[in-house]
């Protein structure tokens, strides 16, 4: 037992303070109110608003992935698959993609004009979100199944492959054997219906505030789910199996069920955010679903601190700001203005993320706002126990 901390590793470091439930509620409310008021300071159709909408959608995905990787400790490198599946659900049920639907006259469900009279399926966005959540939850469990017998690195490889398979299907899906046309490949499904909620006007592409508020509502939901699950029977079971699967199962935690619940719940938020982004970006395009996107989301939670809910929020905000603002607007533009240089730094954006992560791993491997447990796991080697459990989990 490593009851004695390794000397020299006890540097006093800032970490996420342990908040009482009341403090945490106060922080959450303050965060949400501030975030909700932010658009009033900004141009409603401007570049910054656009970045905020994207940032909020990424926060949703990062907090979803946090359930899988941060809470349950299952390294998932294929999260983009859930983005893709959610986005395609939006494409299928909120665009003209299935032109033959209803004998070419289209099928609509709880939507207003003009979508109601166009060809293809046109469902209300809230219905599509439910479809996307169900589809991604099932996909999450399917990807979970083959990884159940595996540990650590192997889980990463299987999930990576799954992400790649979905990405390949997206690219080549415009003409698949047997199935025919299931995606629009690199051309993309476009246009996609704008969100059309009951009691409000259809969302516009020139006024981004409603989009932002909707994304913020999803953030609130995923935050709520993260907090509730963290402090629940299931949350404890996730930590237990992350630290020691043998002890966890010997204490009555069913491994398969508990892991599948993590995969399914985490995936659901990827699907939800994916459906939203499809509508917001007005396209479902195979080029969006690349491996690098999985890394992008994973980098957010590593940067912020695995398992630390506020850390992940911070990590997602920082990385989406770097991706959407710092790289294209600052690094790309300023050198041109100042030195008359001409190069495209946005081509290097993943190089830049990689560089940031390496720096992070050296200076602060536990993340910006680490959770107490994770910090200890890193510093004292908890959870690296050898396994005596024979893999016979079928």
């Amino acid at each position: 037992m490593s009851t004695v901390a390794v000397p020299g590793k006890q540097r006093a470091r800032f970490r996420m303070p342990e908040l009482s439930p009341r403090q945490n509620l106060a922080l959450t409310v303050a965060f949400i109110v501030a975030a909700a008021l932010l658009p009033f300071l900004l141009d409603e159709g401007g570049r910054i608003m656009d970045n905020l909408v994207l940032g909020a959608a990424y926060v949703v995905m990062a907090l979803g992935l946090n359930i899988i990787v941060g809470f349950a400790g299952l390294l998932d490198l294929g999260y983009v698959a859930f983005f893709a599946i959610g986005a395609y659900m939006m494409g299928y049920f909120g665009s003209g993609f299935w032109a033959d639907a209803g004998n070419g006259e289209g099928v609509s469900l709880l939507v207003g004009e003009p979508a109601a009279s166009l060809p293809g399926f046109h469902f209300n966005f809230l219905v599509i979100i439910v479809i996307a959540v169900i589809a991604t939850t099932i996909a999450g469990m399917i990807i979970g199944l083959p990884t159940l017998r595996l540990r650590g690195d192997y889980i990463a490889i299987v999930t990576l492959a799954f992400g790649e398979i979905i990405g390949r299907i997206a690219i080549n899906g415009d003409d698949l054997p047997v199935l025919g046309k299931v995606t629009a490949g690199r051309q993309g499904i476009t246009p996609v219906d704008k969100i059309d909620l009951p009691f409000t006007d259809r969302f516009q592409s020139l006024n981004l505030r409603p989009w932002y508020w909707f994304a913020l509502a999803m953030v609130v939901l995923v935050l709520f789910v993260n907090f509730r699950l963290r402090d629940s029977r299931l949350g404890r079971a996730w930590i237990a199996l992350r630290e020691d699967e043998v002890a966890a199962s010997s204490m009555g935690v069913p491994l398969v069920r508990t892991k599948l619940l993590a995969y399914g719940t985490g995936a659901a938020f990827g699907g939800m955010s994916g459906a939203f982004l499809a509508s917001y970006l007005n396209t479902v395009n195979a080029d969006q679903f690349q491996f690098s996107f999985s890394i992008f989301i994973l980098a957010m939670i590593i940067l912020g601190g695995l398992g630390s809910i506020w850390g992940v929020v911070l990590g997602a905000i920082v990385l989406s700001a770097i991706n959407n603002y710092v790289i294209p607007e600052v690094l790309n533009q300023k050198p041109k203005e100042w030195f008359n240089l001409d190069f495209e730094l946005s081509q290097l954006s993943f190089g830049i993320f990689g560089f940031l992560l390496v720096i992070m791993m050296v200076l602060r491997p536990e993340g910006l706002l680490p959770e107490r447990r994770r910090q200890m796991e890193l510093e004292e080697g908890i959870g690296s126990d050898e396994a005596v459990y024979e893999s016979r989990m079928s």
Partner: protein
Amino acid sequence: MSGGAVSVEERGEGGPPGTPVLEASAVTKQFGGLTAVNDVTFSIPERSIVSIIGPNGAGKTTFFNILTGLYKPTLGRVTFDGKDITGGRPDKIMKQGLARTFQNIRLFGTMSARENVMVGQHSRMKAGLFGSILHTPGVGREEKRAREKAAEELEYVGLKPNTHDQLAINLSYGDQRRVEIARALASDPKVLLLDEPTAGMNPQESDSLTAFMRRLRDERGVSILLIEHDMKVIMGVSEHITVLDHGEKIADGGPEEVRNNPQVIEAYLGKQAAEGH
């Protein structure tokens, strides 16, 4: 089954009295070419304390791992409470009422003592995904009850209330052993398997653990299966002792009987006697 029946008869009056709650018949476990447990038949009566002893590498822990479902036996059967649990899933076996501790403590280090014991109650709780998210009144009550029960168990094993919220990894060695027992007890097991619980304890701590095991049997009706190297503990507390050597059962009986068995003295006690104990 006939093999098991014969060996029970063979034991005659040496066999443990009372209705058996856990029975292993002709259990064998091989790792590649190595036979870690060889054709061991064994039973634990209700409300009793029985032990397994044997030199290092005799196969004691492997036998535990078979009983609790971590290993599937190569041959043989395990029945618990009348049901066949051979090769069953560890969490299901735990849920049926067979709880254990580990030779090398396996607490969840970054969880508090209390949370560790709450994980032990997992199989007795119902809160599911949606109940936990919505925090329904039922889930709230269950959670509160689980916290209280965790505190009760920790006090039962002798942990002071001010240590309940300390992280497991920061507790003293003796307290860690106690928390592990509390975590196992939290599921109200019928049978408790303790793998060398006094390892690393001083004589006073060992004595109090011995007294604690009797209390557990008498107050809560738990049967205890003990693996131990400390002969004072073994002889003091066991109603029945089984001796393993090189994976085989070489003797079993009451403490006196085992102490005087020449094979045991040769295989196990003899070595210690030679070393001057």
